């Protein structure tokens, strides 16, 4: 096709030798161009997929270490005068004890050579700030511990954890690292005694947020996401299906219906942050619903998810053949009975698939939730959709902003949890479609 003249009708093979020569001359070049073009296409796909691999690889290699946590073994003396100096022995008195002192005393005993005050302060920071609460919980669970000495595994501080996970550049000069030489020596000494080890970190899955990375967990965010998505599902699924049924089965085709359709398509493409602005202006400032609450987040995400549900539901209602409707109408069913008893059940697999995909998108959404205050630092696990809460993607955003090195792996681990939920949801959508889909 390089030149139209090259394709002028040739009377006989011999007579077209000039044309054939011209075609032949360009052939090598054209074939090379063909190969190049094909290679571009392949490169593009390989490039896109290698981005995907790089992205997931970075997240996983950064994050999987957060599932284990460094612990230190210390001989804790549960001294009476630190825990309960007045000897009352009831739960309140035990809860008020100075458990920090127990951990400090144990550390001093383990390293008696440390005399300097600054060095002592560094020594105390080997264990997490949470160690005191761990000891307190032990004593509250078993008050007979008071006065005894026990070997206890305590959570190490995030710096020590990072050191053990190889994330501290030990080669730098001492003044440039957070961990000083004496700390390295203590850790090495503990290591020699077998008093330091990494264990599976259950707290990451059961704890709420914290300023201390070593005890920060995702459970609060998971529960927040659950409440938010529950509200979204309760609103978006029935309303979306109802709207789809009306538009597909009952709406007269006029300008008004057309407007609604254009509207739904547009709404599906509106930037998510605009929904956040709507939520802020209408639900918080006008209706005075509680800030940071999953109920508001759920409503906003429901408005966002509804177009997806409607579009999916309409497509699967459309796929039900008209013969089903005609048969139902023919034996005397009303139009609504036809839909509720015959068409909708047949369309349900497609509707559910679309809903799950919409919900998966809602689970990963964070921008509109920033607008309605779901970015607060919340330690408590929410108990109802009206409690302040945050959601998984926003937790990722919050942790990503924290300066501690240990939060980097926590962030990646939270992303792994988030991706795991998304994979489960999308896989169930695919399985549902494979299992229940009908070809007419």
């Amino acid at each position, binding site marked *: *096709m390089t030149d139209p003249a090259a394709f002028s009708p040739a009377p006989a093979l011999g007579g077209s030798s000039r044309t054939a020569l011209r075609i032949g001359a360009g052939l090598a070049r054209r074939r090379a161009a063909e190969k190049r*073009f094909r290679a571009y*296409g392949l490169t*593009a796909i390989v490039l896109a997929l290698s981005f*995907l691999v790089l*992205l997931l690889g970075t997240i996983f290699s950064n994050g999987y270490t957060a599932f284990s946590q460094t612990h230190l073994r210390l001989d804790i003396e549960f001294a009476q005068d630190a825990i309960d100096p007045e000897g009352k022995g009831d739960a309140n008195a035990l809860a008020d004890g100075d458990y920090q002192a127990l951990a400090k005393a144990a550390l001093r005993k383990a390293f008696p050579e440390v005399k300097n005050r600054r060095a002592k302060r560094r020594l105390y920071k080997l264990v997490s700030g949470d160690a005191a609460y761990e000891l307190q919980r032990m004593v509250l669970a078993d008050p007979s511990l008071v006065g005894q000495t026990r070997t206890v595994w305590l959570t190490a501080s995030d710096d020590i954890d990072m050191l053990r996970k190889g994330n501290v550049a030990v080669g730098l000069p001492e003044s440039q690292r957070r961990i000083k030489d004496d700390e390295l020596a203590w850790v090495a000494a503990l290591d020699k005694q077998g008093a330091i080890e990494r264990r599976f970190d259950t707290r990451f899955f059961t704890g709420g947020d914290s300023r201390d990375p070593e005890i920060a967990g995702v459970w609060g965010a998971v529960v927040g996401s659950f409440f938010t998505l529950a509200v979204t599902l309760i609103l978006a699924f029935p309303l979306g299906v109802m709207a789809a049924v009306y538009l597909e089965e009952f709406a007269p085709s006029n300008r008004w219906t057309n407007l609604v359709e254009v509207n739904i398509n547009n709404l599906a493409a509106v930037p998510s942050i605009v929904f956040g*602005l709507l939520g802020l*202006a*209408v639900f918080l400032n006008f209706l005075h619903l509680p800030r940071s609450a999953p109920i508001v987040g759920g409503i906003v995400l429901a408005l966002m998810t509804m177009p997806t549900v409607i579009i999916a539901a309409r497509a699967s209602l459309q796929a039900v053949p008209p013969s089903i409707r005609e048969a139902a109408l023919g034996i005397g069913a009303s139009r609504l009975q036809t839909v509720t008893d015959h068409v909708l059940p047949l369309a349900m697999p497609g509707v559910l698939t679309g809903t799950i995909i919409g919900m998966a998108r809602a689970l990963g959404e964070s921008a509109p939730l*920033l607008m309605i205050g779901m970015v607060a630092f919340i330690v408590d696990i929410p108990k109802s959709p009206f409690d302040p809460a945050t959601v998984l993607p926003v937790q990722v955003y919050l942790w990503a902003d924290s300066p501690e090195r240990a939060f980097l792996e926590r962030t990646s681990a939270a992303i792994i949890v988030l991706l795991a939920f998304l994979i489960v949801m999308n896989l169930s959508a695919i399985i549902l479609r494979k299992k229940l889909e009908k070809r007419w």
Partner: protein
Amino acid sequence: MQLTALVLILLGLTYAGFRMGRRRAVAVSAGRAEKLHSLPAYYGLYLVIWCALPAFALLAVWLAFETSIVTELARGTLPADQQNLPKARLNLLINDIRNLAAGDIASGQADAAIRAAGERYKSLENASFAAMAVLCIALAAGGIAVGRRRIAPVLRARNLVERTIMGFLLAASVIAVVTTIGIVLSLLFEAARFFEQVSISEFLFGLDWSPQIALRADQVASAGAFGAVPIFAGTALISAIAMAVAVPIGLLSAIYMAEYATSRVRAFAKPALEILAGIPTVVYGFFAALTIAPALRESGAHFGLSIASESALAAGLVMGIMIIPFVSSLSDDVITAVPQALREGSYGLGATRSETIIRVVLPAALPGIVGSILLAASRAIGETMIVVMAAGLTAKLTANPFEAVTTVTVQIVTLLVGDQEFDSPKTLAAFALGLALFVVTLCLNVIAFRVVQKYREVYD
């Protein structure tokens, strides 16, 4: 919770109504069910409507207005000098009253007047709930009684029930329109308040953006400048970089998948590419800030370039990766939809495959491709988390991709996250930016849909 209990009682009543209606219908037919106009269950549903509809409507209306009315009444008990405080102070006071009523600790010193108001608030709240509960239950029970009297064999229960359900279906389909109207109105309303304080021309054409404003009159701070051009330029720069990544990669992938790939490669590559669209954007943001930006800065330093750690390049690059599937998926569909006859005609004339694609298939699929690119551009402009995490905060008017620029979405987030006051132009500016964002993306979407639709008419 008391409210949950009330809702459960109402639901119980509704179910009782259903059973009662069904039984009543059987009873009035006197054993001859064929005399009934509708199936007995429809008489049950008829009672459900009579019972639940008014009761839940009252509940919703009551809950919507309860807080403001109770607050207003409680405020009435405050001494006159406290009632005349400026609005912000008064709101703080009311918050204290609410906290006192809820048994929490008030922020300031609670004097006798506030305590009294708190007590009053609490008693009013209790009285209001009691009245609401009694009224709702009475309405539900009364509805059942009235509806039950109306049940007769000639009552066209099915038609009435279906008409009500139809009303609900219609209402559900209108929600999408209401949402759009809500978006437009809330943006317009707040933006109008912003434009009362800052002129539209300054906002649209001003070159200086520094929204910091003195919170108190005696504070030393800049007066704030609201020229949004640097923000629009930053958005355009990052989106352009994203499109420069996404369009070639997305389009070439689509061409390869539609024209060259074997069905097995296609079955693997298409869903794999779509995974890119399913990954939450906050993950991309983290990836951009953590991996791409430092890598770019270091490699830039290698070549003697100074690349900011929040450079437009890093954010744009990662955003481009994110929107690859938006380009490739739709383009793939339209390329596949080009009739095979066109390709065969071209092959018949001696063209190679790539020549056919470039000169025949792509021109035929062009409207659809343009549509997909416009949709992807609208996605890029409205994308928030990637730029919030990887782009800069200060507005700078530059076309240099190695510098840090800010975008519309970043500014909206930084202006609105945290404590806010709803009468300062700083907060309201976010709504003006939101309006601009909404209008631009809406235009892009409408044009894209139009282009795609027009294309469909050609071959069907």
